[in-house]
């Protein structure tokens, strides 16, 4: 395997309207690498949902994207409150977002389900009061 590419982003927790900067940049980078539009779409939607979650629930965090010949891996890490019930959070329609978030069109309870839908594997490592790390992979080969 040849060298992998790594992109690192800090996700600003205060700036809701500019959320999506990291995923938009990743989309650009993947396009420059010549990946297919379908793959780019899956990676960027999954990452955007994660980014939005970090802004809504965890006051930001970090996003790392690793591109190898076999897969693209996205690792989202925050120091937020953790997820109380992962099984419940994975259900479509379940959300703890506030009304103000909902008025922006978010909080439909589709974030984590979309992340799972668009990736080949996803794992959630969460500790109440300490934070959450989500690792997702989209296979290329």
């Amino acid at each position, binding site marked *: 395997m040849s060298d992998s590419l790594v992109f690192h982003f800090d996700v600003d927790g205060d700036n809701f309207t500019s959320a999506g900067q990291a995923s938009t940049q990743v989309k650009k980078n993947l396009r420059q690498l010549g990946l297919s539009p379908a793959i780019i*779409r899956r990676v960027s939607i999954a990452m955007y949902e994660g980014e939005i979650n970090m802004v809504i629930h965890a006051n930001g965090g970090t996003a790392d994207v690793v591109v190898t010949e076999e897969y693209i891996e996205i690792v989202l890490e925050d120091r937020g409150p953790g997820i109380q019930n992962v099984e419940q959070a994975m259900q479509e329609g379940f959300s703890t977002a506030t009304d103000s978030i909902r008025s922006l069109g*978010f909080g439909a309870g589709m974030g984590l389900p979309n992340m799972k839908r668009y990736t080949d594997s996803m794992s959630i490592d969460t500790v109440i009061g300490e934070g959450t790390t989500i690792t997702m992979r989209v296979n290329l080969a």
Partner: protein
Amino acid sequence: MKVKELLAHGFEALALPDGEREIDGVYIGDLLSWVMGRAQMDNAWITIMTNVNVVAVASLADTSCVILAEGVAMTDELKDTAQAKDVNILGSSEPIYETAVRLAGLLA
């Protein structure tokens, strides 16, 4: 059908950085994550949402254009962001259903 061809059929160009883009199908929705989960690439996306996150969703979900129905007003922030991110936004003065019916006739 190309996005720019809609201008001859009662749709208004609010931001049209990539009018040559082909439309394939239509999706309607205002809940952004729902749209990201269900809309297909190249769909025309009809919504009444006008906050700036609409541009990010359209860009990442790779829809061919956003159609703001019901004559909802667009902010300068949305327009500028759409131009910068290469996202087409059209306006329709008709309600959502009539807008969809009109598109169905054009795309048939």
